[in-house]
């Protein structure tokens, strides 16, 4: 009996302890997580939580001083570059380790190792894209550049110095909740982190959607509805700028420009479409337009907003540089910033750098494919997936052609969107294995003048960016820059023929012939992801860039600006004026106006009184945004279905649609093809969409009132946690803006860093912030402390120190790092 009692109580105790020490499905190991000695309680930070004043680290060569300011921004003062990058790695790991590693797991298709089955399809997609492989090669090729290799290794060593001393109780809380441990960092992982950025910014394609439209409607319709240059544009390089170079020979347009789609072929990829919200703004005004007589530069890159924040602020000071700005966790150097003499910023270039080729295999083994009149061998690799919660690993075979990887082999393959390309190879600039992007930032961080900027840009590959520049020598410049394929006109607008050598990417636009303008007559430079140039540029870059509204607004305001100050540029960053409403609302209202029953509608009256600003409290903005979305859907979803699984297409641009409304009101596209016996007119669809918008808004938000329908409430900007841990993000942030608005804040995307720098002969004045905080720790007061200010459109003055002796009341502590 005693024995039975003992055994039962022992089993109960051991069983419970064991159960609480291991994760159960999605539930973490509760014992360890709740223990105050090890679990989440240990992640609670108080106040600034600075490292101890003296830190002994194995890896620094000399003494390093890190000054922290009241926003917890580290200002690193090192006696050599190695120590600066080492310290940068150490501090970023301290604040953002989980985030850094998460990006690398995503890019290399290894998320399912830590989160299990639910990330498997995403991982398969990433592996097929081949980013991990490319990252390895980029580092192998890049390390022949000694500086590149040294910077990456110093940074890695710093990250690892932090990881090495970590105990379970100090792990970022996400590791505890999800239940895994950080791995060692390496230069390869930094490149993977950059791959993630290439994927976010360049990883979209419309090729298959366009091919589907082409095979259904023919070339004339496609040319009409999907033109290569919009009717309404304000390109980055001002119209009339001379191209002062002799263009190289552009490959001739082949007789056959697209692959022929067989009728049985399903063309649908899992590749996302271009996302215009993932755009950005930047501009610089020259001295003659500014109050100080020297340039002022502004930049706000728009990305999907997350916590921990995408950016990390830092100042790095060594004998070769003194630079401040926004850095990417996982990468050394400053990506967007300024130093004593210059400032620079970036926005994405929407050029077409991801193309697809139809591949004809010899047989099902996929070992050979038809190319240039002969069978050519594919290469094959087997990807292995270790999935959390699965006893054995999974395998996936990926074939590659000389174009690039076959993203999915057969229609039966499962993939993230059930959009399956059959035998299509992908050519993607992100997989370019040459080049050392980070060196562009290395040299920009040290740039003293325009020539240094010009030289720095030549190192940059992808994702192509509009690099804006200003110096205290009163130079301003902008250049859509990166490695850009030299294409024949419309090359890659549709799926191409993988057997035809004329369809290959044959060469690159010479880097010194990338579009560029210096000190234009109009006195400012700007970009908002619109077309890089007008059609006079001798090379074809792509047919679809971000809609031009933001660019038009920025340029018209800068045009009128005199004696510009930091504040006038800050206010432009927060401009909520709706250019699209100015263009089309009067036209649409006139159509509604024809019917008196509509004009009595309170929604109509609100719109009629609306100031055309997407301010937070405007009801007009809510109705207008919903209405044009509804209208576009009603006009085009019947003919160009975006959501069709078998043969998805894309809608003609909004610009093209407004041209149609104004100039071709009887176009057949206004008819709803699903109603056989009825011919819908423009008037019908305008009215119908207006009513549908009011109905759906009422259904979702209640009856119309300034509270229920306020734009910020309906738009509801959320900044979610990067790992989708609920409760770790911030929801319903009160602000205005929208997709085509300069203040491009949408449901999930928005200005991820806002910066304004006023150049000066002596010392620049700079302002900036991002929607989050320096710490990646959800329990830190510095996790999301900048969000409220960001939502209001305010900026922080950035503390740019001349030396470590610099006195400021904003300094909250100094940490000395010495050799162990």
């Amino acid at each position, binding site marked *: 009996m*005693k*024995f039975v*009692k*003992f055994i039962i*109580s*022992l089993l*109960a*105790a*051991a069983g*419970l*302890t064991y159960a*609480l*020490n291991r994760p159960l499905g*999605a539930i973490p190991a*509760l*014992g*360890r997580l*709740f*223990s*105050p*000695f*090890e*679990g*989440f*309680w*240990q*992640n*609670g*930070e*108080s106040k600034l939580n600075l490292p101890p004043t003296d830190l002994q680290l194995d890896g620094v060569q000399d003494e390093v001083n890190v000054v922290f300011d009241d926003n917890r921004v580290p200002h690193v003062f090192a006696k050599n570059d190695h120590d600066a990058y080492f310290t940068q790695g150490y501090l970023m790991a301290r604040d953002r380790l989980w985030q850094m590693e998460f990006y690398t797991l995503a890019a290399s298709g290894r998320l399912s190792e830590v989160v299990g089955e639910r990330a498997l399809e995403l991982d398969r997609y990433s592996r097929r894209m081949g980013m991990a492989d490319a990252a390895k090669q980029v580092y192998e090729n890049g390390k022949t550049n000694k500086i590149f290799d040294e910077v990456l290794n110093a940074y890695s060593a710093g990250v690892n110095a932090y990881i090495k001393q970590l105990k*379970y109780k100090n792990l970022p*809380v996400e590791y505890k*909740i999800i239940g895994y441990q950080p791995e060692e960092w390496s230069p390869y992982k930094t490149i993977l982190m950059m791959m993630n950025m290439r994927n976010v910014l360049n990883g979209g394609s419309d090729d298959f959607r366009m091919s589907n439209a082409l095979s259904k409607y023919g070339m004339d319709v496609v040319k009409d509805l999907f033109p290569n240059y919009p009717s309404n544009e304000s390109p980055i390089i001002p119209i009339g700028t001379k191209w002062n170079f002799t263009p190289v020979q552009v490959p001739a347009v082949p007789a056959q420009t697209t692959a022929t789609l067989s009728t049985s072929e399903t063309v649908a990829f899992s590749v996302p479409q271009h996302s215009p919200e993932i755009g950005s703004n930047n501009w610089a005004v020259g001295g003659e337009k500014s109050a100080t007589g020297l340039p002022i530069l502004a930049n706000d890159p728009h990305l999907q907003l997350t916590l921990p924040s995408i950016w990390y602020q830092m100042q790095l000071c060594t004998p070769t540089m003194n630079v401040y700005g926004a850095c990417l966790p996982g990468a050394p150097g400053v990506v967007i910033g300024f130093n004593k003499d210059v400032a620079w910023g970036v926005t994405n270039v929407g050029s077409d750098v991801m193309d697809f080729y139809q591949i004809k295999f010899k047989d099902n083994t996929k070992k050979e494919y038809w190319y240039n009149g002969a069978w050519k061998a594919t290469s094959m690799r087997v990807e292995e997936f270790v999935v959390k919660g699965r006893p054995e690993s999974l395998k996936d075979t990926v074939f590659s052609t000389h174009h690039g990887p076959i993203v999915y082999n057969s229609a039966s393959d499962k993939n993230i969107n059930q959009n399956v390309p059959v035998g299509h190879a992908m050519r993607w600039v992100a997989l370019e294995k040459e080049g050392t992007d980070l060196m562009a930032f290395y040299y920009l961080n040290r740039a003293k003048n325009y020539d240094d900027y010009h030289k720095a840009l030549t190192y940059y590959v992808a994702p192509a960016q509009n690099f804006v520049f200003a110096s205290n020598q009163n130079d301003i410049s902008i250049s859509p820059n990166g490695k850009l394929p030299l294409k024949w006109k419309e090359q890659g607008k549709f799926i191409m023929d993988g057997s035809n050598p004329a369809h290959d990417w044959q060469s690159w636009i010479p880097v010194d012939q990338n579009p560029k303008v210096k000190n234009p007559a109009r006195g400012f430079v700007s970009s908002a992801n619109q077309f890089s140039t007008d059609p006079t540029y001798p090379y074809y870059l792509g047919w679809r860039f971000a809609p031009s509204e933001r660019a038009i607004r920025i340029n018209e305001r800068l045009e009128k600006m005199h004696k510009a100050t930091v504040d006038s540029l800050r206010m432009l960053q927060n401009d909520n004026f709706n250019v699209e409403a100015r263009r089309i609302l009067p036209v649409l209202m006139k159509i509604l106006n024809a019917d008196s029953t509509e004009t009595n509608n309170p929604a109509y009256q609100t719109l009629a009184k609306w100031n055309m600003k997407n301010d937070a409290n405007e009801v007009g903005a809510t109705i207008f945004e919903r209405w044009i979305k509804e209208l576009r859907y009603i006009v085009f979803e019947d003919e160009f279905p975006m959501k069709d699984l078998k043969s998805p297409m894309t809608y003609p641009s909004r610009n093209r649609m407004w041209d149609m409304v104004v100039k071709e009101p009887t176009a057949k596209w206004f008819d709803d093809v699903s109603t056989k016996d009825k011919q819908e007119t423009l008037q019908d669809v305008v009215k119908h969409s207006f009513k549908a918008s009011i109905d759906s808004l009422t259904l979702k938000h209640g009856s119309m009132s300034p509270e229920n329908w306020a734009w910020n409430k309906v738009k509801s900007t959320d900044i979610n946690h990067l790992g989708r*841990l*609920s*409760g*770790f993000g911030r929801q319903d942030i009160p602000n205005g803006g929208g997709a085509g608005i300069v203040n491009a804040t949408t449901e999930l995307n928005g200005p991820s860093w806002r910066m304004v720098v006023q150049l000066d002969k002596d010392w620049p004045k700079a302002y900036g912030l991002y929607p989050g905080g320096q710490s990646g720790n*959800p*329990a*830190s*007061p510095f*996790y999301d402390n900048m969000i409220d200010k960001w939502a209001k459109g305010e900026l922080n003055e950035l503390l740019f120190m001349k030396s470590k002796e610099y006195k400021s009341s904003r300094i909250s502590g100094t940490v000395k790092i010495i050799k162990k």
Partner: protein
Amino acid sequence: MTYIIILIVSAVAQYFLPWWVIAPIAFAICAWKSKTAFGAYAAAAGAISTLWVGYAFYLNLNNDGIMLHKIAGLFSENIKFLKILPETPTFFVIMAIIGSQVAGLSAMAGYHFRQFFK
């Protein structure tokens, strides 16, 4: 007395060893000291509850409750009924139950172990 010993020994041990060290500690000390099964359970469960709640209370106070609030948000998004309970007490109670049951059951096992060999 058993209560005090468990409290002190496990406080020190948990600084260096994983959280589950409370189980063997409760087992060993109660095998040595306890007179009744219930006494063993009560001493160990009480000691660990006191220790965990006390230490977590201190950490939570220092952090203005931010971490607890986030964790509570995470759990209550997934287990909805938690939303209707008062946040801070609920999570202290969950923690206390976890710690006290592991320690209490181990203590009883320790007591019965002793009885078996007596």
